[in-house]
Each structure stands twice: as C-alpha cells, then as structure tokens.
C-alpha cells in the first residue's frame, strides 16, 4: 500500500469536499481511486465506470504518464506518487 496524492480538476472539486488534492492509499491506480470513492462516491462516479475503467472523456496521469499508456487502472503506484485526473478534450466543427 502506498500513499498517493490525487489532484482533482476544478469542475470536480465540488464532489471532493472542495479539495484540490486528496491523499489516499492503494497498491495501484484503480485501488487509490476506489479508496477516494469510499468518501467521495460522486467523484468516483464521474471518473470511473462500473467496470472499473476510466470514463471516455477522462484521462488519469501518474506523474507525467497517461495510465492508458501504462497498465491502465492496474498500474502500480509508489509512495508519494501523484495522480492527476484530467478531462479528455475533443470536438470539432459541425
């Protein structure tokens, strides 16, 4: 179990007790986010699907790496690591 800092994007802070960062423990990315979800279920709902995968328009970074390029939610975390929740931004002209 490692203690990790999770950075919360501004629009989701209302679902995280107003915090910009939350500390949580877990062995991998999914476990850390689930641990946060125990206290902030509405936050978790907006980040993760029922199957435990990130929602389509959400990216999760471990340090400077997108976890989709690592082992996804199974990516192991280390003591003091920083997880960032970010929007996946896309769109275009009509």
């Amino acid at each position, binding site marked *: 179990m490692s203690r990790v800092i999770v*950075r919360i*994007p*501004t*629009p*989701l802070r209302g679902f995280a007790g107003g915090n910009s960062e939350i500390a949580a423990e877990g062995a991998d990315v999914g476990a850390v986010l689930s641990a946060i979800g125990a206290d902030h279920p509405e936050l978790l709902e907006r980040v993760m699907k029922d199957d435990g995968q990130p929602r389509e*328009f959400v*990216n999760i*970074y471990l340090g*400077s790496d*997108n976890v989709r390029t690592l082992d996804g939610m199974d990516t192991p975390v280390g003591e003091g690591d920083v997880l*960032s929740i*970010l*929007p*996946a*931004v*896309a*769109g*275009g*002209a*009509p």
Partner: protein
Amino acid sequence: MPDPIQPPRVSPMNRISLPDPLREELATIAVDGYPYETCGVLVGASADDEVRVEKVFQARNLNTERARDRYVLDPDDLMSADLAAREAGLEIVGFWHTHPDHPARPSETDREAAWDGYSYVILSVSGARVEDLRSWRLNGEGFVEERVEA
C-alpha cells in the same frame, strides 16, 4: 437528440475575461493553422461566475485524419499545461479551438466531450482572419454563451 445549442442566452452572471494580447495570440494561431482546426488550454482563475484567463497554451491536435473539422487535444499537452498552471498558482479554466469556415458555435461533437465547469472558447476562422470569437459553458445538456470581456 437534444439540441446542443440552447437559444442564445448571455447571462451577466457568466463572464470570461480574455485580455486583448491573449485574444491576438489565439487569432495568430488560428490563422496560421487554417484550414485545420487548432486547439489549446486556457489557464487562469475563476471565482463565482467569473473566469479570468491569464495564459493560453496551444496543444497538438491528435486527430490528423479529420483535422479540418475535428480535434482531439493531446492529453500530454494538457498535463503540461496543468503543471504549469499549478506552479503559477493558477488553474485550468477552459479550452479553446477553432472552427475553420464554420460559426463560433458549439457542435454536437463539442457537447459530447464537454464538462460542466469549464469555458469553451471557439474561434471561427476563414482564410486570413478570425471572423468571430465566442465562449460557451455547458449547462446540463446544452451550452450557454458567456460574455467575453477584455
């Protein structure tokens, strides 16, 4: 399917401050990138219903197959902008992108990916100039226009 664009509503409660130098910076990128879509990140501060943009970042468009009418903002560029924002004591307040030869109004494609709580600035660009710049904020299922101030 809900109309992504609500009837135009500009509330004095929704304002975004985009200083002229930043607006010019966006215009330059938009014109240089024409006829392709360009995109990026707005960094600044927000309080209540007012957003103040202090920096703009350009990001890569990962949608190279349909770069004339679609964009996928490179998440690595967003991560870099987020780090820069936090180091400066600022935050990501929204995103910008261009609509080459189309109005500065959000599309259904824009709505699908949008989050509540961010400003979405759209520049309509045609050839050598920016025709229009507007800012939008998702409000439930549809977008509401924000008042853009210098």
